[in-house]
């Protein structure tokens, strides 16, 4: 191909690399590869901005948004200015197509892991989808955007190899994918991404194996398209294209099918079991104080357990909203006080993004205390008396796939203790308004 020339070239390649001062070499590298590298890695950078908690997840994607204008502008500009046939911008469309196959291969080789080890490789896709779009986790609404972001991230990783290295050798591919990216992945995911899911040896093994397959594919692509492809006959070419399309589509089709046929049902079943385990129980005896002919009581109802393990073995907690407790205190057949307590939502671990903090948060919300206050006439009431506490707690239990309106009732004798019931729990300011 004849390259475009727009005025005198900025950097004459004929000068010879040896004669160029180091600064010129660095400048050349930055212009030809460095800027392009920074721009093509925007999907990864955007993810990392959120994952490393430098910005909220959705704010991180602003970088990708701006890069969607900057990358084409830069590629077009370099295509117009560059006279270096080795400059990656000259081959951008080829590299972009090459990069589609390694990303598919990365997931394709992990498909057997589900049957062999129950390793659900697409679980992070939901996280990507939730992080970028705010759609609920565990649904098609977050899986599809997550799959698309995963594809972009993988494509971006593929492009790194072609942009970063002038020589697309096997050694470079192995150093990049098996050495560097696998190690980075084995560090970043458990420390920053895998919330509630301990990283097992299977995870690390799968990670190294899949990245190696990705590296091999990335290395093979230029060889195939430049050496093998031109020698193929037309029918064989058609077969190859069909095969590559199949390789590309296979992991995404597999994930969508498995999510629909297995995961959603399995998760709903797990959630139904977890819903059944949630109970309300009394914690200690009610405190009573008598003043101006009235008796005020306070007691604590404990709701839980809420922790469970989802379809992929990750720990999660059932959420509960609209918690409404109503009840009575009675002595014999006589009602002595009427009780109420409301909470908009029990504390949730959904917003915990730090894997290190997750388990502490999970165990702190596993059993949640709900304050209930009662009031009634004072006649003959005092500490030490045994009364009957009855309650009805209504709450909406929420998992990733299902919700269930539950009514938990209970009755328990309890001895009154002396004490001023804690003042009314302050009304929380709602951050979502």
């Amino acid at each position, binding site marked *: *191909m*004849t*390259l*475009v*020339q*727009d005025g005198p070239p900025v950097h004459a390649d004929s000068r010879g690399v040896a004669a160029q001062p180091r600064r010129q070499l660095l400048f050349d590298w930055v212009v030809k590869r460095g800027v392009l590298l920074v721009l093509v890695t925007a*999907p990864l950078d955007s993810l990392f901005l959120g994952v490393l908690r430098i910005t*909220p997840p*959705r*704010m991180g*994607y*602003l970088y*990708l*948004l*701006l890069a*969607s*204008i900057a*990358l*084409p*502008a830069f*590629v*077009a*500009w370099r*295509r*117009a200015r560059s006279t270096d046939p080795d400059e990656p*911008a*000259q081959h*951008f*469309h080829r590299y*972009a197509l090459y990069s589609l196959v390694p990303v598919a291969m990365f997931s394709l080789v992990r498909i057997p892991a589900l049957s062999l080890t129950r390793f659900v490789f697409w679980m992070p896709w939901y996280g990507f989808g939730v992080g*970028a*779009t*705010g*759609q609920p986790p565990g649904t098609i*609404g977050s899986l599809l*955007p997550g799959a*698309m*972001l995963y594809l*972009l991230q993988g*494509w971006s990783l593929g492009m790194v190899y072609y942009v970063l290295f002038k020589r697309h050798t096997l050694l470079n591919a192995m150093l990049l994918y098996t050495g560097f990216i696998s190690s980075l992945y084995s560090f970043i995911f458990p420390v920053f991404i895998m919330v509630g899911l301990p990283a097992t040896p299977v995870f690390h093994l799968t990670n190294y194996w899949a990245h190696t397959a990705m590296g091999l594919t990335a290395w093979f692509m230029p060889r195939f398209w430049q050496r093998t492809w031109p020698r193929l006959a037309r029918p064989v070419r058609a077969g190859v294209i069909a095969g590559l399309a199949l390789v590309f589509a296979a992991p995404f089709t597999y994930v969508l099918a498995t999510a629909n046929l297995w995961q959603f049902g399995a998760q709903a079943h797990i959630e139904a079991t977890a819903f059944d385990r949630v109970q309300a129980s009394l914690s200690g005896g009610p405190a009573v104080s008598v003043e101006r002919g*009235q008796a005020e009581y306070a007691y604590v109802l404990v709701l839980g357990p809420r922790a469970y393990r989802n379809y992929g073995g990750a720990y999660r907690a059932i959420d509960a909203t*609209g918690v409404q407790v109503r009840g009575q205190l009675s002595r014999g057949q*006589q*009602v002595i*006080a*009427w009780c*109420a307590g*409301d909470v*908009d939502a029990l504390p949730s671990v959904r917003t915990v993004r730090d894997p290190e903090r997750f388990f502490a948060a999970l165990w702190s919300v596993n059993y949640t205390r709900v304050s209930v*206050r009662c*009031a*009634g*006439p004072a006649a003959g009431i005092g500490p030490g008396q045994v009364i009957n506490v009855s309650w009805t707690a209504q709450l909406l239990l929420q998992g990733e796939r299902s919700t269930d309106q539950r009514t938990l009732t209970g009755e328990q004798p309890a001895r009154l203790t002396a004490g001023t019931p804690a003042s*009314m729990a*302050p*009304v*929380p*300011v*709602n951050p979502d*308004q």
Partner: protein
Amino acid sequence: MSTIALPTTTSAAPSPAPPGRLAALRTWVLQRGVLFVLLTTPMLALFGGFLLRYTTLPVSTLLVFGSFALLPLWISYRRSVSRDPDEPVHHIHLYLKWAVLPYVTFSVVRILPFYLFGINYWGVWYNFGAQLTGERPGTLPALLAGMAMYTIQGIALNTSFFVLFRRHSLLNALLYIGVWFSSLFNFVFPVYSLAGDKLTPTWYAIDIVAHFAMALTAWSMPGLWEGILPRLRFPAQAGVLAGAAVLVILPYGFGIDRAVQWQFAAQAAVERAAMAQVTIGIEAGPVRVTVGGNQARYEFGLQVAHRTYLNTNGLERDVGVGPVQVTGQIISSGRPVAWCYGYAGPLPSPNKVADPRSFATALAEDVRVTVPVVCYGLANSSQSAQQVVVEWTAQAALAGDRTQQVRDFRGQELVALDRAGPGR
């Protein structure tokens, strides 16, 4: 302007015979259509996710993310195979550069009307940013995210002019940007967005003027960048470039400066004043009593009202109220006969309703919102009473875009009893 190279690869030489309609269409699609679609994904995201709300803005923005890979791929591919020097792909880097000043001009010309009429141009950026990122509207993160959205929309819109038209004439610029886009936005934004805004003829006039200014700037760009600028000597050239840089920074800098220096404090003051106006009182009518067994159940409602205010973007909004927790007593003959409790989570609010018509309906419906309160006591306590004293205390969380507070409300009122049910 670049010299277009002749590739040695695939494209066939142009036929001397005039191409058929289908071939012309195919050529148009390949040379301009695909590029146009890929370039305008920010506008498609705006329409699909923000204005027409087929989906959410973050989901529709995935279109832009898709173009992140496809657009440079297409540009690179077409540059490799195209032999037509007029094909936009050969000049797209110039078009993208030319697109910058027009879209900033669109905002710069609206700075003066801000001082004259109090209509700010960055108000809608909060909405873009809040919907895209989930940040609270009226905050700096929402403003910054909105700026990013505005930037790619502005570049997309103006680049589409250079891609769509072969001749970048004044008439084409005025028709496409001045007439078509200002008409479209003058229709689409008021009908599908800007909920709570009472748009005046001044708003429309400013919008039209800004679009025409953008059109004129877009038309002048090829002349400026490729005609005038290369002919200027160094100091003049540097001066023009510095002026262009100032122009680019101006609408962002001005918006941020006004938001931080004026708007945030003004908005907080507006919200505090609005929160002070919020009232809670007993709903008109008697307290309903039903007796079952040895218990009496009393019911009444507390009405929350006067929540509406006008924010610093000129939009009607409701003070967010909730949760509200009510406790109280029913007092008869000077002694408590029943104990009351009421609770409501966040009260309905039109603030998150994006559709202007639905917003108006929701605003009207939420003028008065009732929090039900239920009291229980022994059945024989107020058997003969016709009237009782209702004493209540409500604690409510109030929230605006920039301020939040918890307020206590109290009341005591003599109310008639309405007896019903088996004990009547």
